[in-house]
């Protein structure tokens, strides 16, 4: 009930978003009219994405939220080049996205580290395969990233010797190994406990602020989306559409104790929750 009363304020907030969006940064990703249809095993066609438009500027942190099965992951897979759209176009830095690109790093739901490799071998993997080049410069940069991610001293450990949070941090370092422009993350912390997750959010913010990457992150957690995102993009249940694109005007670096419970946080989380419930 309370949420319905808040609704008029929400519209105002959205207008405010449009005004503050005029930042002088180039558009990195342009998704226009993207449609994706899946055929199920039973032979039915399922409309997963229905004319999705999304523009993301350089160095922006965008969080995608939406109910399960709304096509968030589908959208991310299209950006990662792991799937092809049935209609519409998407481009990265002005170039059409038709397949995997070295300018895109992906972090999966599970850390997806290869258990037969050490942490170092795992994070160096992108330099070993698919035209990745193993330069001393990149190796030094990756070593630096390992230190930022708190993995110094664990380089020669195997993934099973690491905690879940450390595994996911190693996965983030691996995704950054080729110095991509875009980092895609599909519920990277979903498998972690709440406390670890909050710490990982702070660390991700730090890594992101230090590296200057553009990030698209899928999450089920509204708090996580507001804590991390410059924008929170809300998607509708299937067929997936973008129903709202909210700007998060909170200063950086954000600190959990200050962000959570702040008026902006409360307002945004109510709005997102209302959209997801509706």
């Amino acid at each position, binding site marked *: 009930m309370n949420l319905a009363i808040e609704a008029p304020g929400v519209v105002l907030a959205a207008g405010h978003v449009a005004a503050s969006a005029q930042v002088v940064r180039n558009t990195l990703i342009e998704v226009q009219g993207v449609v994706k249809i899946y055929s199920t095993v039973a032979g039915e066609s399922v409309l997963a994405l229905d004319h999705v438009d999304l523009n993301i500027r350089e160095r922006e942190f965008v969080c995608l939220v939406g109910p399960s099965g709304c096509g968030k992951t589908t959208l991310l897979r299209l950006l990662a080049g*792991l799937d092809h759209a049935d209609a519409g176009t998407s481009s990265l830095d002005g170039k059409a996205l038709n397949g995997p690109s070295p300018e895109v790093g992906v972090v999966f739901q599970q850390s997806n580290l290869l258990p037969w490799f050490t942490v170092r071998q795992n994070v160096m993997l992108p330099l070993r395969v698919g035209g990745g080049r193993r330069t001393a410069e990149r190796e030094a940069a990756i070593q630096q990233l390992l230190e930022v991610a708190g993995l110094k001293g664990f380089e020669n450990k195997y993934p099973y010797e690491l905690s879940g949070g450390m595994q996911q941090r190693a996965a983030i370092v691996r995704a950054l190994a080729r110095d991509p422009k875009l980092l895609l993350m599909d519920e990277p912390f979903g498998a972690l406990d709440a406390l670890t997750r909050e710490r990982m959010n702070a660390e991700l913010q730090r890594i992101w602020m230090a590296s200057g990457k553009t990030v698209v992150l899928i999450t089920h957690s509204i708090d996580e989306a507001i804590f991390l995102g410059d924008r929170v993009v809300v998607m509708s249940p299937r067929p997936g559409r973008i129903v709202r694109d909210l700007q998060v005007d909170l200063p950086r670096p954000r600190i959990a104790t200050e962000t959570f419970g702040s008026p902006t946080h409360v307002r945004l989380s109510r709005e997102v929750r209302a959209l997801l419930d509706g």
Partner: protein
Amino acid sequence: MSSLRSEGVAFDLIATSAAAAQIRRRRSRLRNIVFGVIGFLALLLLWKLGVTYLKVPPYIMPAPERVFTALWSGIAVAPSSPLGFYVPLWNTISNALLGFLIGASLGLALGSLMAEFRSVESTLMPYAFALQSLPKIAIAPLIVIWCGFGDGSKVAMAALLAFFPILVNSFAGMRAAEIERIELMQALSATRLQTYYLVKLPSAAPYIFAGLDMGIVYALLGTIVAEFLGAQEGMGVAITKAQAVTDVAGVFAALIVLGVMGIILHLIVRWSERSIIHWADRGKH
């Protein structure tokens, strides 16, 4: 100060409980060994009593000490002596291992190709199934015709029998590679070959080792069968020779030697599995 002291106590407790756990482990291991030895002695006793009181003639079932004598007479000789087990055993083992290597390599290569290329799979699968359903030992007479009464037949039989479990397991293991890991390689624009040896092959490793474990025992089996069908040397020949003079104790002794050899080969495979794929079963969280 008091907190420091209590910390010290806590560390002591940890050390004590770890030591206690180690002692418990050692004790239980010792207990297992003791029970094993007791069980074995009881079996020997039962055997001896049975043979003595039921008056079983030695050409049907020799008493344990006769088997032991036969075993000892085969072991306590110069390694090059034609009367000992060493010469025929080496002959059998070397042929079995050579056959195993050939069969395992072919099985792994073909299994990989079938897992990687649908066309290879659909072409070869019917034959693989047909041959797999066939009792392969029945092919042995044919193999002897083709490869003669020498080492060739032994190696061929060992290779044939070792081939299938490794083919089937490497195929199944590669198909079972996790899709997320393959997609990771796709997202990195890895080549097919890179995906094969960096992801699919290690993914299949636990399956392949299970196949190798079976394959090594089958290879030994294949070699013995080939030796039964007519060879000049080997443990199979030693068994048929002993059988010809109803030296049942000699047959038993040869069987014991083969059994021990089989266990050793199996343990070698298990040991290399544990050291090579130490990450298996612990890779997932």
